[in-house]
């Protein structure tokens, strides 16, 4: 059985959901093909961060600014169930060296228009009463937000479905049909979806999807663990992380890197991250990493030492060698667009990604230059 669509989005994570949302808003007839169900990949293993604090000036920061504006609109449209919370982020520095690095970074961000407020050590307790004493200082970013990512993805898809999108959960994509150098359809475990436009939003598995058409795309898994506490009274008001987090995100190391990232959620649990390591899709538990996360959390917030962890989970961030997402047309196969490789920032960057993809699909001038995110950059890097 074959059905015909203007566009087929592969993947029902937060990025695929945002693509389906904006494509249907542009009037396209869309199908979403997903081998699991809503948010069953990395979206369901994340914290729901919408951060600007960790972005250095450049294309990703501009993408973030667009995305934050769109998230604020979506927060109203999706309603309270999406739990969009403009809580703000606090980056803290343990010693003078980290503080000076942090302040320089914040100054460069401020020049690019990011709101960043220096917080002297004496004022840290006002922002976070349970923060360890003796820190050198911090920077507060009022624009950082958090969302319930699974619910947000589900609600975006629901809105898309109201505008006619067909959600094909439990349909695994098994191949891309092509003719004369362009896409003609998506083969799934439950039949063919005919289309001339395919959006690859398969997240950490996007490289495999591109591989179905014989096209290499360097999206690789970067594993992370998150420790979850029992529900607690409100102890932690903002997203709080240590200044080394930004360096670890940007690092190209395959080895383990652990920084301290802590936040409360609307449900009362406290989420503790963040570890990064390149170990493929290894799903085994590492109690050593979980222990490191716990130790660091208890040092940053001593009150957490007596709180109890009730679970931890692992996820696989889709990362590209240059830590930028892949957004735009693949010039090797007409009709194939990529929307993937967002690493740990997929939730934050999803609306901008969907918005740009919809503009590209409609042949409009995109709101931002997409060249820095173009899949062609990998071929250029290989030639260089």
């Amino acid at each position, binding site marked *: 059985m074959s059905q015909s669509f203007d566009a087929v989005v592969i993947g029902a994570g937060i990025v695929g959901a945002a693509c389906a949302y904006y494509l249907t808003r542009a009037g396209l007839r869309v199908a979403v093909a997903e081998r699991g169900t809503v*948010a069953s990949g990395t979206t369901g293993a994340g914290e729901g961060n919408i951060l600007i604090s960790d972005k250095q000036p450049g294309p990703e920061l501009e993408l973030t600014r667009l995305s934050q504006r769109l998230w604020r609109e979506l927060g109203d449209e999706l309603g309270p169930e999406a739990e969009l919370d403009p809580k703000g982020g606090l980056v803290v520095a343990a010693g003078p060296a980290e503080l000076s690095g942090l302040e320089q970074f914040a100054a460069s961000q401020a020049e690019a228009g990011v709101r960043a407020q220096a917080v002297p050590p004496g004022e840290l307790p006002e922002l976070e009463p349970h923060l360890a004493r003796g820190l050198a200082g911090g920077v507060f970013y009022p624009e950082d937000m958090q969302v319930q990512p699974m619910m947000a993805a589900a609600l975006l898809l629901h809105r898309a479905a109201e505008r006619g999108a067909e959600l094909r959960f439990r349909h695994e994509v098994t191949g891309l049909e092509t003719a004369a150098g362009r896409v003609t359809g998506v083969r799934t475990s439950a039949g063919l979806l005919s289309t001339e436009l395919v959006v690859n939003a398969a997240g950490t598995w996007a490289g495999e999807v591109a591989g179905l058409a014989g096209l290499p795309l360097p999206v690789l898994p970067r594993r992370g663990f998150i420790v979850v506490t029992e529900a607690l009274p409100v102890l932690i008001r903002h997203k709080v992380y240590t200044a080394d987090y930004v360096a670890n995100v940007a690092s190209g190391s395959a080895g383990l890197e652990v920084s301290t990232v802590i936040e409360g959620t609307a449900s009362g649990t406290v989420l503790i991250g963040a570890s990064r390591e390149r170990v493929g899709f290894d799903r085994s538990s590492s109690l050593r990493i979980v222990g490191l996360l716990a130790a660091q959390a208890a040092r940053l917030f001593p009150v957490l030492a007596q709180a109890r962890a009730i679970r931890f989970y692992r996820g696989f961030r889709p990362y590209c060698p240059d830590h930028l997402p892949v957004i735009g047309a693949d010039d090797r196969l007409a009709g194939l667009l990529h929307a993937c490789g967002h690493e740990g920032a997929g939730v934050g960057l999803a609306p901008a990604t969907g918005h740009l993809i919809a503009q590209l699909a409609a042949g409009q001038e995109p709101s931002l230059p997409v060249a820095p995110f173009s899949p062609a950059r990998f071929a250029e890097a290989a030639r260089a």
Partner: protein
Amino acid sequence: MPEPISVTVDGADWLVPPGITIAAAFTTRGQPGWRRTRLRGEPRGLSCGIGVCFDCLVTVNGTPGVRACLAEVRPGDVISTETGSGFAGSAAGPAAWEPEASVAAERCDVAVVGAGPAGLTAAVTAADAGCTVQVLDLGERPGGQFWRWGPATADGRFHHGWAAFTALRHRFDAHQAGGRIVCRPGHAVFQVQPPAGNESWFRVQAVAGDRERAYAWVLARAVVVATGAYDLQLPVPGWTLPGVMAAGAAQALLKSSAVTAGRRVVVAGAGPFLLPVAAGLAQAGARVVAVAEAGQPADYVRHPAALAASWRKLPEAAGYLARLTRHRVPVLRRHAVIAAAGDGRLESVTLARLDRDWRPVPGTERTMAADVLAAGYGFVPQVELLAEAGARLAGQAAVAGADQQTTVPGLFAAGETTGVGGSDLARAEGEIAGRAAARLVGRAVAPPARTVVRERAALRQFAAVMQAVHAVRPGWADWPGDDTVVCRCEEVTLGRMRAAAGLGADDARSIKLLARPGMGWCQGRICGPPVASLLASGLTPAESPSRPLAQPVPLSVLAQLAGPDSASKM
């Protein structure tokens, strides 16, 4: 009667019998509920009764989140009831916390997790063969739930098979005296880590200590996991009211503390376990107004071969029935309690007759006064430790070979963890596992007697028939309503779960991600099986849930798993 002891509860002095659980103390004071929930402010009390559901938490001597169903009162205890999370950290401030010292690692041949019929048998069997054995158990004294006991019940008058337990304990104590067995009560094992790489040691990790804040671990060359099972409860309107509890919780109060759960009791559910629960309560002086069995025990006649193989079970059931008749307890077949009601505590239940699929037959509903509903629809094996260690599961039970070894070499499962079958089967499996573990670590030991192996086969056959006759039928989905709380921890209603299903969630994990059932303290142990059953008509079979921490672990304990380099930079 021994001298009562004095404890303080929310500022009031209470005199209570020594050695009873804190939950039993509340019960004797006529107070079935003591905690208030975080979101809805609803009263809660004893529910599972055996440390699985975390609904009965109290603060004891400043430590929040203590399970009242497990902890026993001690003279001078200062107990306070909790609202919401009960977390006292914000009041105590950052400096007030001192982590407890961890317990040094000890090496042994065989570690046994769980000191019930299977675990105790495995431990003494392995020790008989010359092994050094460490036994880690959540309870305060060996016996497990089946032989749970306390100072007030040490005569075994509320127990079954007490002579067998006494004999087993005699051997157990002798091995303790001889140094072969080390028993570690009050250990909440949160993970069993198989040997990594070229190592040969399993690492069994637990939270221990008075305040459940110390880290303890044992290194063993073989591990037997005998963590038992807990009651399957089905959510009905009102089932979170104090006074509504698992059948096993009523039984545990009696066995541990000689306390009856209430005055007018209805026992409901499915399976032969209901009979001893009702008989025990009646014997202890409660008025059991009805036993409602949802299944149709007459169906046993369809399986005469299995019945013949386990002939001993018949007189046992007949004995309980005779006792119930003596106490004038009506036993209603194909009936269920489909709702509970009361103002802050249970006051009445609604009984209904069921059709073959367990749908209530219209017009048969009747309401009766009761202050306790003890309900159980079978049992759920506790297999988290095995699953996280990598052992393969089949349905809810671990896959085990003829020698009780799981798919992880050196890791054995015995008792209910391999499938629910009762204490006799648990002892047979424990003996086979104990011998196999001893052989694995190099002891010369004879294979199990053929009678034991035959007994295991016969009892398993009977258990399969029992489960078929009493299996939960899909019509129970008509009992709860959209406003019925299904997940007790996160207070998620069936309506919210259905809304999540409407957004595309079609399996237990995606329902959980969208609506949060199973995200709380018990990690879906209580609501997981009913949620899976409610979804069973859906598209996707439930994955076995991932619970990497089988018990809550304080971050101060978790931090010790990081190894020596954890003291580096913040």
